[in-house]
């Protein structure tokens, strides 16, 4: 399968201030998003998932590795970024902050249309449209119907769900092929959440859009994602289809994450000790080993790999499409 957006050996380093060591926000990630695929990038805050998303958007410069769109490597020159931004769009977490309070809905949605001269793009293709047509089209694609009714509203006059739809319409207006959504529903009310997720599914169906959704919420991934990549401390530690990863998790970290999803009548929760470590002090060996339940329980020792877990680093998990995990326990590194 040809990939739409891919990252290879991607690294992003933040310079340490006040003499602190550099922080490796993203520390070697291989990731592929196929056309019309919904991929969930899952992890706790501080695991580097937002940094990875920003790098894929060209907002952050990688310190190593590369991002490629449709086979062409992302370079940070002005002209390339401009055309890249018609293809890869962003949905932010907080729709209230993502809209300029002094711009009406029409102006917010028209912004991308004006920047990329979309009216001209359509006319050259023989499609005689006005700017208002394109704004209306984007708004109704995002589920704001009838669109004209909302043209002159200001963000503060809309509900949270409507604001998120306006943000989505603004992204759709430049006719991208992939949306990167950073926690798209975490600041919305429970009842609105399903509506926005259903919209993302519908956009994939109607427009063939790919979606990379960054989230800490496994239920969201179960709701809409085809595949899941679990991140821990700057690396992808497990990747596979949603069913594979959530029904038969291979990595002890994924298992722990899954066990604490608040649900009734579930398996005994594996609550990890401590917090995600500091990305400027990545542990030696397997980066998860200081918190690993398999190491604590002696499972690793029984498999005879305990020493390796503590000292030998693991290779970057390749984006092959199989279900695999960056873990030495038997059967984890290989596809099932």
């Amino acid at each position, binding site marked *: 399968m040809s990939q739409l957006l891919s990252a290879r050996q991607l690294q992003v380093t933040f310079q340490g201030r006040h003499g602190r060591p550099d922080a490796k926000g993203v520390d070697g990630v291989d990731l592929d998003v196929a056309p019309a695929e919904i991929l969930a990038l899952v992890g706790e805050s501080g695991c580097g998932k937002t940094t990875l998303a920003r790098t894929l*958007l060209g*907002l952050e410069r990688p310190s190593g590795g590369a991002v490629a769109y449709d086979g062409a490597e992302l370079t940070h020159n*002005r002209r390339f*970024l*401009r055309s890249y*931004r*018609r293809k890869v*769009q*962003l949905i*932010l*977490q*907080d729709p209230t*902050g*993502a*809209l*300029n309070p*002094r711009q*009406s809905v*029409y102006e917010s949605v028209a*912004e*991308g249309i004006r*920047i*990329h001269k979309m009216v001209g793009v359509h006319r050259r293709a023989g499609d005689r449209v006005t700017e*208002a047509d394109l704004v209306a089209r984007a708004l109704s694609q995002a589920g704001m119907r009838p669109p004209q009714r909302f*043209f*002159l509203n200001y963000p503060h006059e809309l509900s949270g769900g409507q604001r998120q739809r306006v*943000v989505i319409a*603004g*992204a759709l207006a*430049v006719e991208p092929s992939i949306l990167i959504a950073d926690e798209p529903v975490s600041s919305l009310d429970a009842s609105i959440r399903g509506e926005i997720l259903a919209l993302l599914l519908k956009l994939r169906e109607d427009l063939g859009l790919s979606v990379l959704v960054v989230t800490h919420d496994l239920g969201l991934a179960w709701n809409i994602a085809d595949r899941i990549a679990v991140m821990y401390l700057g690396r992808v530690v497990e990747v596979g289809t949603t069913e594979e990863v959530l029904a038969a998790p291979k990595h002890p970290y994924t298992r722990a994450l899954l066990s604490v999803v608040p649900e009734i009548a579930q398996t005994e929760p594996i609550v990890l000790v401590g917090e995600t470590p500091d990305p400027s002090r990545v542990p030696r060996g397997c980066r998860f080993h200081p918190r690993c339940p398999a190491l604590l329980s002696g499972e690793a020792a029984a498999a005879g790999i305990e020493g390796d877990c503590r000292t030998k680093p693991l290779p970057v998990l390749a984006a092959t499409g199989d279900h695999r995990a960056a873990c030495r326990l038997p059967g984890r590194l290989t596809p099932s």
Partner: protein
Amino acid sequence: MSARQVAWRRRKDSAGRTWKEFRRHRTGVLGMVVLVVFALVAILAPLLVDSEGLSRTKATGLPLESPSSSYWLGTDEYGRSVLTLLIYGARVSLLVGLFATLISMVLGTLIGIASGFWRGWVGAALFRLTEWFLVIPFLPLALVLATLLGGSLFTIGFVIGVTSWPGTALLIRSQTLSIIGRPYMERARVLGAGDWHQMTRHILPNVMPMVFANTTLTVAGAILSETTLSFLGFGDPTRVSWGTMLDSAFTNGALTLGAWWFLFPPGICVVAVVLSFTLVGQSLEEIFNPRLRQRR
């Protein structure tokens, strides 16, 4: 397109709301009334009094006559009516004040936005420049510039303008920095917006209310500065302003001669106009600056 018309009406509504809010500030309304009176007097000066009255050679009265029915505010050392001088002086003082403010606001806003927006050496250099202008004492710099450029109405306004922008620039810079961190700026960048687009479409509209409120405060300062420079003898000698009136009253010993009618009216006018601008400015600032509004 009717959307444009409705958008225009919404803008008018928002101006209406601001006006309604403003009317609740009594001191601001008082200042506004005083300013309107002064502005009308300055604009209608030729209709109110004859400009012949400004000529030293055609003066009709005796030098330093005290107020009477023919000279309501007495006469100056040439025998000209102080009232005539005062009315025409209002034109010069207000004009110089507004011109200087225009320069100051444009410079302050541009440099403020640019130094806040560009993080690299451009921003750092502009910030240093702002700080540098801020720490130079105003009066010596203005005097040096006025001497170099000569004392015409235009140069006085220019000198005051280029020396009074750093305060505005700092204010606008800090506003810009806070706006840059907002998510909608990131959204604009991802949509492919260039620097110019970001600055004109997102930052400028969001700092404009602050600029607007700051303008009224700057006008007050500029009028005071014009008076100071003129009083020190660096004004335009061919024009009458409140500052030059104070200057000649002082040099002709109005104080020792007891000619209070020559000294007090321009002084009171300066104080009244500066105070009014300040009152209006403070009210606008309270309306536009959300932080001040919360405190109320």
